[in-house]
């Protein structure tokens, strides 16, 4: 069944274009259609392969093992915590970028988006330099309060938030820009301070955008690998999240790796469905 899908996706080049053309609308030129179909296959085939090679029979056994549960639970908890952190500090940051004019705003926005394009491993190293035991802040934290962040579960949350928060900020800022700022003016004429106007008017109005941003950030945090393994290490039960477990399992127990991957795939699809729903209700 899955092989049939693959066949349809790649499609025989002779039959493809004609069929598209007869559907009405302008014809799709072959030099565009062919790469497009290859591109589609390129994205879909690996996922299909994952399904094809999945050890369906031993799946229940693999997925109920304590290690998998541990990693899955840790992943969900950390991704959710990272999203919460992103919400608390990311939404005000988005508001600042969207609503307050200050010198160097463009630069600040660029810095906020930097973690989006930064290789996560670099992010992890940077976090170590800042919050590691000898980091510029981490040293003081360690000396004065005895707080150590790297290689702890908190460190996982920090690494994930660092990588995921820009998604939230960008999404919320976009929603804020699209929202009519005159509602805030109306609130001001009714006696609302800027904070009250934000809390009681703006926040409810941009809730769909915040939700979409939070889901994006959560998904990004869930899949985070590079910054996590660099900053928090790979200790089962403490810092070993699902992506780390998958990578480790691939070297010793490929079947387990596939099973774990499928779990992450299922979660991702669920997120995508949830997002689409959000966007539809928001629009």
């Amino acid at each position, binding site marked *: 069944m899955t092989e049939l899908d693959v066949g349809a996706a790649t499609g025989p080049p002779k039959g493809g274009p004609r069929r598209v053309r007869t559907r009405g609308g302008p014809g799709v030129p072959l030099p565009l259609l062919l790469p497009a179909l290859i591109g589609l296959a390129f994205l879909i085939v690996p996922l299909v392969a994952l399904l094809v090679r999945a050890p369906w029979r031993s799946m229940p056994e693999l997925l109920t093992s304590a290690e998998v549960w541990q990693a899955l639970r840790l992943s969900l908890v950390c991704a959710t915590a990272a999203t919460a952190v992103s919400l608390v500090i990311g939404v005000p940051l988005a508001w600042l970028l969207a609503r307050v004019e200050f010198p160097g705003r463009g630069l600040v926005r660029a810095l906020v988006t930097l973690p989006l394009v930064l290789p996560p491993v670099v992010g992890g190293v940077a976090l170590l330099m800042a919050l590691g035991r000898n980091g510029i802040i981490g040293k003081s934290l360690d000396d004065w309060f005895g707080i150590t962040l790297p290689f702890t579960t908190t460190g996982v949350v920090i690494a994930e938030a660092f990588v995921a928060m820009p998604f939230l900020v960008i999404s919320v800022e976009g929603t804020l820009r699209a929202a009519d700022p005159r*509602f805030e*003016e*109306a609130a001001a*004429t*009714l*006696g609302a301070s800027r904070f009250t106007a934000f809390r009681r008017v703006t926040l*409810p*109005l941009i809730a769909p955008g915040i939700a979409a941003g939070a889901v994006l950030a959560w998904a990004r945090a869930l899949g985070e690998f590079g910054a996590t393994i660099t900053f928090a290490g790979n200790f089962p039960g403490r810092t070993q999240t699902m992506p780390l477990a998958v990578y480790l399992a691939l070297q010793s127990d490929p079947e387990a790796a596939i099973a774990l991957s499928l779990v992450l795939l299922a979660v991702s699809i669920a997120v995508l469905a949830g997002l689409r729903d959000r966007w539809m209700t928001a629009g």
Partner: protein
Amino acid sequence: MTETPDTAHGTRNARAPHRTPDARGHGPDGSGTGLDARLVVERGAFRLDVALTAAPGEVVALLGPNGAGKTTALRALAGLTPLSGGHLRLDGTALERMPPESRPVGVVFQDYLLFPHLTALDNVAFGPRCHGATKASAREQAADWLGRLGLADHAGAKPRRLSGGQAQRVALARALATRPRLLLLDEPLAALDARTRLEVRSQLRRHLADFEAVAVLVTHDPLDAMVLADRLVVVEDGRIVQEGAPSDVARRPRTDYIAQLVGLNLYRGEADGHTVRLDDGPSLTTAEALSGPVFVAFPPSAVTLHRDRPAGTSARNLWHCEIAGLETHGDQIRADLSGELRLAADLTTVAAAELDLRPGAEVWATVKATQTHAYPV
């Protein structure tokens, strides 16, 4: 937040009679009540500079074409646009440095800006809540205001389920619920369709008449301004070009814009007795005997058109013109004439047919001196 207006004008009737604009600078009774403002806002090449005074109970309409700066003036009064200069005093208190949330000012925005996520009741309760009322008390006040505006049945409705007229009244209730000393209305009827407009206009007039503090409304519709306001302030290109009682402005327009709004032919010239030599055209004979620079106005309905030069007519105002354009105007035909004098003439459809009027046709236009109105510049 006080229940009754302060004593300075407590004895006055709710709707103050029209006051002449020369009372500016102080409240009309010299006690510093009401609005006293000179609003200067500079934005690039545009400069707004208008002086506004109003007594408690007075309704002032800012009338002007789009882009004249009316809305900017309103925003400056509300504190949403900072002043570049001038002053703003309300009941003797300087407001110019006060942020919008601290000003005793209520605003009804053009598209109302009702908070879409709140019910009508919670929209109205928003202001009292921000002014420190408890949730229960705020909702009680809101219900009271909605009741007064005949919206008790719609308290639970979200704004998108309200009709245009209902939304407008909710917006009015929301603005009034903070008990402002200055009520601002930005094109309050512009978002309504023609039929709703008629009804809402008369309702709004009633509510404004009940309002004991200063109300300033912005409109580009002369009818709205005349019906709703005690005094008109006509703004063109950032400056006041005329102000006065609606009837006065309508009878004695001072710019082409106002003349067009109120549907009058308007000319400027030099009077010498009953004759006015126009700045750019022939002479006119008027009923009034004046001297010096004057305006002369007459309605298009005062113009009679003839195909041939009328013989033995008593009208001494006779011009040879050409039809520049024709359009229906209610049940009348309005003819735009060019030639010796540019003017608009109204005639019945039958008359237009009998005269066989068409663009380019040559006609003679007469106006009786008794139907003109001359007044000093």
